[in-house]
C-alpha cells in the first residue's frame, strides 16, 4: 500500500508537468497582449518594452517556457501581471474557499443522493422511485447560472433566510454549495439506484434475507456496501467537475475562490495567475483520484493496491 501511494505520488510529477506545459502553450496561443491590457493604450512604448523584458515576453516562447519551468521547480509560480503580487500566496489564500465550496457541495450531494437512491432502488417502479428519478433529472438539467439566481430569489429575497452572496458564515455557504452540488446529487442518485439494483438480486443478498436478517440491515450492510465501488468512482471523477463548476458558481455568489480568480485572470491575460490556478486545480484532481483508489481498498478488502 505504502509503495503504491509513493509510486502514485511520484507519477504526479510528470502529470503536473504535462498539465503546466499544455496550459502554458495554450494560454500563450490565445490572442491578446498582456502588456497592452496591463499598461493600457496610453502607456509609452519604452515602458511597454521595459515590462516585456521584465516578464521575458520579448523572448521566444520556448525560452519563456524554460524560465517558467525553472521557476516552477523552484516553487515560484511567478508574479501576477495585474496586481503585481506573487501568484502562490494569492492562490493559497483563495484555494481554501474553492476547496471548502467543493467539499460542501459534495457532502450535500451525498446526503441527498444516498438515501434517495437507496429509496428508489428498494421501492423500484413505485411513486417514490418515479419522484426520485424526476428530481434527479431536474437536478442534472438545471445549469448553475440559472439555478443559482433562482435559489437566491426564493431563499434570499422572498423568504429572507439566507444572504445573497459573499463568503463568511455557514449561511453564506448553503446556496452556493446546493447550486454546485445539485447536478452531482442527481448523477449520484441515479448511480446509487442502478448500482443497488444490480447487487440487490445477487445470491448473497437472498441468503441474507433467508437468514431472517432485517431488511434495512440487508440493504445497508450487504447490498449498499457492494454497490459503493462505482459510486465512489463517479464521486472521485465528479470532484473535478465540481472544481470546474465552481468557476461559474463562484462568479454568481461572489465567492472569493480560485474559480473567480481564474475568470478574471483570463480576461486580463494574466498568464502566471491562469497557469498557477490551473495547476492547483489539476493537483487537486490528481490527489482526489488517488484518494478514490485508496478508498476502494478500504471499502472492498478484496481489492489490493500495488
Amino acid at each position, binding site marked *: 500500500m505504502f509503495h503504491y501511494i509513493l509510486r502514485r505520488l511520484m507519477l504526479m510529477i510528470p502529470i503536473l508537468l504535462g498539465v503546466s506545459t499544455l496550459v502554458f502553450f495554450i494560454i500563450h496561443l490565445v490572442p491578446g497582449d498582456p502588456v497592452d491590457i496591463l499598461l493600457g493604450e496610453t502607456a509609452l512604448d519604452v*515602458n511597454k518594452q521595459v515590462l516585456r523584458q521584465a516578464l521575458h515576453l520579448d523572448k521566444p516562447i520556448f525560452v519563456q517556457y524554460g524560465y517558467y519551468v525553472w521557476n516552477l521547480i523552484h516553487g515560484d509560480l511567478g508574479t501576477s501581471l495585474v496586481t503585481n503580487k506573487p501568484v502562490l500566496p494569492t492562490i493559497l489564500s483563495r484555494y481554501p474557499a474553492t476547496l471548502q465550496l467543493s467539499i460542501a457541495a459534495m457532502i450535500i450531494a451525498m446526503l441527498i443522493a444516498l438515501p434517495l437512491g437507496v429509496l428508489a432502488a428498494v421501492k423500484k417502479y413505485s411513486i417514490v422511485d418515479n419522484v426520485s428519478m424526476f428530481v434527479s433529472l431536474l437536478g442534472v438539467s438545471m445549469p448553475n447560472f440559472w439555478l443559482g439566481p433562482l435559489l437566491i430569489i426564493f431563499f434570499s429575497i422572498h423568504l429572507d433566510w439566507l444572504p445573497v452572496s459573499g463568503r463568511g458564515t455557514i449561511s453564506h*455557504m448553503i446556496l452556493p454549495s446546493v447550486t454546485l452540488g445539485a447536478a452531482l446529487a442527481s448523477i449520484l442518485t441515479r448511480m446509487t439506484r442502478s448500482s443497488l439494483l444490480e447487487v440487490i438480486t445477487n445470491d448473497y443478498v437472498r441468503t441474507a434475507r433467508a437468514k431472517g436478517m432485517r431488511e434495512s440491515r440487508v440493504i445497508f450492510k450487504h447490498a*449498499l456496501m457492494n454497490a459503493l465501488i462505482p459510486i465512489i468512482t463517479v464521486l472521485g471523477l465528479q470532484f473535478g467537475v465540481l472544481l470546474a463548476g465552481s468557476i461559474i458558481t463562484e462568479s454568481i455568489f461572489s465567492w472569493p475562490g480560485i474559480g473567480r480568480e481564474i475568470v478574471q485572470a483570463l480576461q486580463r491575460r494574466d498568464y502566471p495567475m491562469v497557469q498557477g490556478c490551473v495547476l492547483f486545480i489539476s493537483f487537486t484532481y490528481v490527489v482526489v483520484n488517488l484518494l478514490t483508489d485508496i478508498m476502494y481498498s478500504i471499502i472492498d478488502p478484496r481489492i489490493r493496491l500495488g
Partner: protein
Amino acid sequence: MIYIKMYRFLFVLFLVGITACPNTKKEGKQLQKDINNELVIGIENAPANLDPRFATDAYAIRIGKLIFPGLVTLDENFKPKPLIAEKIETLNDTTYMITLKKGVRFHDGQELTASDVEYTFKSIMDPELKSPHASGFQKINKIEVLDPYTLKITLNEPFAPFEEQILVFGIIPKHVAENLKDKFNTNPIGAGAFKFEKQLDGGDVYLVKNTNYFETPPHIDRLIFKVIPDVTVRMLELLKGSIDLTQNALPQTLLERFKNSDKVNVMYSPSASLTYIGFNLNDPMLKNSKVRKAIAYAINREDIIKYKFEGHATLARGALGPINWAYEPNVSTYEHNVEKAKKLLDEAGYKDPDGDGPKARFELVFKTSTEKERIDIAKIYIDNLKNVGIQLSLRTHEWGVFFTDIQEGNFHLFSLKWPFVAYPDFLYYIFHTKSFPPNGANRGRYTNAEVDKLLDQSRKELDRGKQKEIFSKLQNILADELPYIFLWHEENNAVVNKRVKNYTLSASGDFQSLINSSISE
C-alpha cells in the same frame, strides 16, 4: 457498518468545512467597535491596484480618488479647480508655480509637502517603475521644490491640458512609498477623505473615514466596496438591501425593476461617456466619407435611445458632450433618414443591384465584444443597414481578442464606449495622426492635416476662450468627416438605498459625493 463509517466520514468532512469557514461575524464585530454606520457599494470587479501611479481600471481610479486627492480636481464642466493646491500660477507658457495648502496631512499624520508632490511625479516618470501613466508626464522637464509649500514645474513645451491631465493625479507620501516600494499598493496611505482599511481576498475594499481630512470630514464611518461579478446578483443584493449603492453597474433593462421600489431610488445624471462606431479608414469603401455618412443616416439612433435606454441617453453631435465646457452644438448632424442614406450610397457608386430586393450593395463586418447589451444593439444596426442595402455581419469576440483586433486595425466597423471624455485634449488621443496605435487610440487610422494642426495648436494655446474656438473648429471638421459615428452620451445611473442621504450622482461617475453623504437609520 460501512455506511456508518461513511456518514461518520461525511460528518468529519462537514466539520472540516465549517472550521475552514472564516469567522467573519466575530471579526466583523471586532471591526465594528467604533463604527456607527457603513455603506456597502456593489462593484463589478476588483480594483487591481489602488496606487494612483498604477491604477488603470475604473474602480481603482475612482476608489483611489477617495484615498489620494490630487493637486486639482475637475468641476462639473470638467474644468480644473484647486484641491490640495492653494493656487496655481502660470509664469509663462511652460512654467507653473504651485502653492500647496498648509495643514494637509496624510493618514499617518505626516504633513503633505512639495517634496511628496515631487516624489509622486518623478516616480511616475521613472522608467524603472513602469507606470502606465508615464507618457503624460514626459511633458515635464523640471520640478523644483522652492519651500515645503511651493514648487515650480517647467514643461518641455506648452501643454494646455497640464492641469487637468497631470495635476489631477493623487499624491502619495514619499516617506512611506520609498520604504514600501512595490508593496505600497497593499497598504496605500494618502491624504484623502477616506483611509484604506483592508482589501479582502476576493477584492472587496474597506475604507474608513479620515477624521483629520483637510476639508469637511465624511459623515459615513466606513465604505465597503463589495465585488459582485454577476449583474443579476448585484440587482438582487440591492433588492434585499444588503448593498446600498451601485453606480453604472446595472444595465437600463434591469433598472426598470426598481421603478416602484420602496427601498431604493434610481438616479440619473448626464455623463462624459461617448458610445461610437469606429470605421477602418484604410478600407477602400469606408475611406469614402459618403459611405460613412450613409451609414450614419441609416442608423436609427433616436429609436435606440428611446427604446433601449428608455430615453436615458443624449444624441451625440461629437466626442464632447453638452456638459463639457468646450462643447460645440452647431455642427453637422445625422438624423435617421433612409432615403438620404440610399442617395449617398448611390452617389458613392454603390448602386443597389436589385432595388429593394435581397441582394446587398456590399457587405461589411461589424465587431463587438460578447457583452449582451452590445450584441442586442448590434442587431439593430444590422436591421437598419439592411434597409439601405448594406449587409452587416456581426462578429463577437471575447474582450482580449476583440481589443487586439481593434488595435491592429483588423476590422471594418466596431463599436465601443469611451467612459470619460472629460478634457477636450482627448481628441488628440483619438484623432491625431501621431495617435495611431500603439501611441494612442486613433484605431481607425484617421488622418487630416488640418485636424492635426488644430490639435497641436490647442495644446499650445493657454487661453480658455481661444482654446474653445479651436475645439469648435475641430468638432465641425470631425462632424463633417465622420471618422466615428458619434452615437450617444449614455447617462450615468445609480441605484441608491433610501437610507442614504445627500448622495448626488456626478457627471464623472466617481464616488466623491460619498464624502458628503450620510446614512439615516
